[in-house]
């Protein structure tokens, strides 16, 4: 057997470039394109205040005279609109930049929340087993048997009832994050529980138990690092779903307040004008949402394959 002699890569960056995951990235055109699109969208959202030609939420800069300007043209007042403008004379392009900001922020926070909750419960269920496991996993099962958007709607509705009307506007985003996050934890819990049950049988866990290491430390220091792979994959794919969930809720009018429109809100506004010929108000936000969700999803798919060579 001739040994494969890897040309030992130097330094941390060298190691990353030489790693199998990076190799799989380099050789996957889908992953490269998806990551480029995702990066552009994320950067656009992040630097919205500097990139956007107009501030779409400052009523003073809005001019009704600019309303319904088609894409790539100038309005009566001489302003140029790349993606056209809506009925209030808002620049669609700027609105998309600010809108993806809200969408991404809500999506990311929701998935982080779901991840922390799901991973913790999954670890506990998998490690403790028995009654704890049964209770946690049955709750997850019940929840997974409903469409998650329905759960989010339910949570959103309940929260509306609890929070006093005066604070509803300001709390709306947090309620949204909570609702989407809570409807998504079960996926994490299931995967993590399975992996935990496999890992806890392994002798390195026994070795720690012999030393009397407390279960909480065994979970955090020993088992957690070994379950992050699948969790990362679910989180990436989940992010796409969370963004769509937010858009759906906003489209239904129960999401973020109209003063802070997300991509979903923009689509809701746009669809009113679709049949009167002002297609761009709906079209561009919708395409952005599709590109964002699709690219993140494809990245998640690629990550799953890259981290699990058996699936290739």
């Amino acid at each position, binding site marked *: *057997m*001739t040994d*494969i002699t890897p040309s030992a890569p130097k330094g941390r960056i060298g190691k990353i470039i030489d790693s199998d995951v990076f*190799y799989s990235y380099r050789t996957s055109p889908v992953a490269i394109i998806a990551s480029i699109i995702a990066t552009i969208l994320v950067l656009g959202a992040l630097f919205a205040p500097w990139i956007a030609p107009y501030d779409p939420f400052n009523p003073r800069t809005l001019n009704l005279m600019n309303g319904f300007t088609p894409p790539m043209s100038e309005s009566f007042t001489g302003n140029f609109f790349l993606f056209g403008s809506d009925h209030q004379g808002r620049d669609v392009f700027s609105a998309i930049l600010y809108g993806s900001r809200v969408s991404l922020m809500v999506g990311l926070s929701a998935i982080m929340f779901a991840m922390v909750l799901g991973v913790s419960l999954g670890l506990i269920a998998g490690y403790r087993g028995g009654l704890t496991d049964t209770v946690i996993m049955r709750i997850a099962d019940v929840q997974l048997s409903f469409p998650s958007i329905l759960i989010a709607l339910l949570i959103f509705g309940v929260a509306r009832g609890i929070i006093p009307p005066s604070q509803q506007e300001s709390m709306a985003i947090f309620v949204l994050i909570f609702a989407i996050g809570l409807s998504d934890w079960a996926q994490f819990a299931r995967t993590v529980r399975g992996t935990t049950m496999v890992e806890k049988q*392994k002798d*390195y866990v026994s070795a*720690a138990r*012999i*030393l*009397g290491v407390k279960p909480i430390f065994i979970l955090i220091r020993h088992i957690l690092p070994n379950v992050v792979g699948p969790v990362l994959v679910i989180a990436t794919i989940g992010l796409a779903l969370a963004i769509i969930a937010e858009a759906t809720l906003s489209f239904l009018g129960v999401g973020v307040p109209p003063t802070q429109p997300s991509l979903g809100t923009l689509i809701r506004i746009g669809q009113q004008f679709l049949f009167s010929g002002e297609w761009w108000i709906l079209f561009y936000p919708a395409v952005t949402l599709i590109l964002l969700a699709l690219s993140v999803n494809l990245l998640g798919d690629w990550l799953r394959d890259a981290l699990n060579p058996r699936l290739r």
Partner: protein
Amino acid sequence: MTETLKAAPVSQPVLSVKDLKVVFHLRRGDFTAVDGISFDIMPGEVLGVVGESGAGKSMTGTAIMGLIDRPGEVTATSISLKGERIDGLDEESMRRIRGKRIGMVFQDPLTSLNPLYTVGEQLIETIRRHLPLNEKQARERAIELLADAGIPDPAGRIDSYPHQFSGGMRQRVVISLALAAEPELVIADEPTSALDVSVQAQIIKVLKRLCAQRGVAVMLITHDMGVIAEAADRMIVMNKGKIVETGPVGDIIHRPQEPYTIKLIEAIPSIKSQNPRYVAAVAKGEVAIGGKTDAPIVTVDNLSKVFDLSPSLFARVLGGKSRKLVNAVNDVSFSIQRGQTYGLVGESGSGKSTCARMIVGLLEPTSGSIKLEGADIWRDKEATARRRQKIQMIFQDPYASLNPRWRVGEIIAEPIRALGISKNATEIGDRVADLLERVRLDPAAMRKYPHEFSGGQRQRIAIARALSSQPEFIICDEPTSALDVSVQAQVLELMSRLQEEFGLTYLLISHNLAVIRQMADAVGVLHNGVMVENGEVEQIFSDPRADYTRMLLDAVPDIAKVA
């Protein structure tokens, strides 16, 4: 070094392989698993292929059967079965050859049988696919085959499912299945490695007898020189994808020519050689080794463990017929003298690992006591703390016993940190470096991850971890059974040396009797959870009292048995 037998004019070789290469095209370059090997197998001959892990022996068998998938590539001048070329055939023609002309027996009998069909259905299907028989005739033939393979009451057992057979019986079924279509060649890849010694001996006999009766040639692939010695006529020694040596089994075992073969054979512990410490003690005129010291370090009294395998909580509480209790360990007593090694021997399911887990504190005993220096380890918090301080464990599988996400340095330092022996980072670093040196590893290894090491090196890391809290008593649960023989010899040697250096006491658990004879001072034999024999090592090996021990000793395949 490759020797090709000249084809005798009278009989043509069943299998003739010329210049076989298996290359895997990986992104870091080509990896040659089998590097240009040539050999012949004559009709009725058993050819043993032996080598350590990674030698390319299984790859050779798989390549002959045409089962190498991408990115692997098989090239050969020729592979011929009874003079017909079988290399480069398309998948469809190859499928007709597999099963019909080449039978296969794999290591794990559970995965080679379909759990959803009865044994009979699988046999009849195979027979009818390849032979022109009707359902009834095929069934009769299947019963005959099972009877030949030594399955008692074959007519009654033919409609059982694979899980209703024991491991040994299942492997007999797999052998019948391999022979069902009357093949000319059987390729057996580690057919007995998953089985206990007593069963292993029977399976080798069955395989050898059946093939001899039918004139079937056998390619027997194994890492176990003892199995080859017992079963094969001629053997090939492989290393790094090449044939090192080939010839009649007796010649190679008694007069190995190549340095690699010599080293390999020397590394095999023989069950016939006496315990070195015993020999030394006798030479000095002492009667027993070590002599009885004052008080034993560990005493186990009437230890029992019952597992409740009842299907539901209901059955557990109510009892009755559905209550299923398993006595894994039943009333076991023994004691271990300080500075000695106590060997615990038994087949799978004998309760030896359960014993180990109770002594180390992972499982609570159902009844009985385990005393460490006179104090019960399960008594109170203080006793638990003392147990953690003084008892450590080395596990069987060095791939599962080291956390793959931790650096070696952190792994070895874990006991030091967990037991609060030291909190000073530099002091811990120094100790880890010292431990690595003592297990003959480079201290720079502490910054690497476990996957960067071989199996033997990982086991050294595991030993270093066990030593880091300065225990007095170490439980070694099959410490070398996942390792190659040459590596096993090194690890055992290291264990002996560390024992002297630190005055350690070992509880050595193994199914390998030769290892136990070489290492232990006293031995206990477990069978189905019961201690059938307990005494000093040479007494047990030279004059066993229990029938079970005698049977176990006779069953061990040994290279010394070759004429």
